């Protein structure tokens, strides 16, 4: 399944992006890679200290296969709010495309980079700063 998933997602090298000078390290995320997840929102957790998007990603090469649930970590609620997000910006069933820096250990999780909604427009009002 994981191999099939790898064919589904686009993995792109990018310039090294420094994680936040934060209260904890983000070394678990591989910031040299970007993965694009195209799927359906299962849940949008507007929670401290981080918000999370749970997104179900189907395998287009195997429609009968079960979807894989990815966990996408974002900043805190007020940090998102400052960039145009609201608690209702996403809801279960929304079709989205999310770009993440994946977990290094191969589990289906990642650090948020950007997202577009079903209308193709970026979610939030402020684009992610290029690195």
């Amino acid at each position, binding site marked *: 399944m994981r191999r099939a998933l790898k064919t589904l997602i686009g993995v792109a090298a990018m310039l090294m992006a420094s994680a936040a000078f934060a209260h904890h390290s983000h070394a678990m995320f591989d910031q040299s890679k970007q993965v694009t997840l195209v799927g359906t929102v299962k849940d949008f957790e507007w929670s401290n200290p981080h918000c999370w998007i749970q997104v179900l990603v189907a395998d287009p090469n195997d429609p009968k296969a079960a979807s894989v649930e990815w*966990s996408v970590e974002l900043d805190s609620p*007020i940090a998102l*709010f400052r960039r145009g997000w609201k608690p209702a910006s996403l809801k279960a069933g929304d079709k989205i495309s999310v770009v993440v820096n994946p977990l290094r250990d191969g589990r289906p999780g990642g650090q948020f980079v*950007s997202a577009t909604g079903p209308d193709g427009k970026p979610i939030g009002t402020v684009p992610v700063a290029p690195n």
Partner: protein
Amino acid sequence: MTRQATVAVMLTLLGGCMCSAQAQTSSKERIEAFAKLPDWSGVWEWDVHVGQSEGQQLSPEGQRKGQAYVAAMHPAFTAEWQVKYDQAKKALDAAVAAEPDQPPATFQPCVAPPFPATALPGMYEWRVTPEETTLISTMGSVRHIYTDGRAHPPKDELWPMVMGDSVGRWEGDTLVVDTVATKRQIRVPEHPGLYTIVPMSDQLHFVERIRMVNRNEMQIQLRTEDPVALAKPLEVMVTWERVTDTNRMVNENECDPATERNPVVNGRITTVVP
């Protein structure tokens, strides 16, 4: 009304007038005391985090500033303490190398960060009064800086506290803050989000000079003194910028450990996925 009763009434009225006059004078003096204080209202953030993305990636300018801060925040230790620092740094490096995917937790998520708590993510707000200046952070920390002329409590009434004991005085528009009785340690930034925690002596002492440079910028000059551990005091200038996209302070420390997705397990930050 007897003469005695008349005198009693007059005394009561006179007393009332005197109290009222006293209250008015007190109120006027207090208004004047407030008027002498600088206006630090608004919401502020460390300049490193200006323009940070939703995924917590710093802006290019934030990365540059962050690297400069990392360099500036490395103290010159005495020979004895250099050994302690080297040991602590070696232990941190070994912990990172052992499990790079689960980095050590040098801050506890969902726990308000300790003193000085001024060079971290989140937003800050000041409450400036004649008697006390209070610093509130969205990360959950609250600092009380007493400016009513009091001194630190005597030594036998102090103990290591998360925020220590701070007293301040105004030198014009600059608040000069003296802090003692913090936890006897400092955090030396090594990499983003990773710090070497160095134990310090019982002479650890901090002096801050805080001022608003202009409407949109504040500077906090932090001097760390410890004649036993440091070969010379460490001076760091932390700059804050005014937040212009929101005026809402939200306590981001309201996490539920039961549902925390980055729990600390065996001293390491982990990530929970279904």
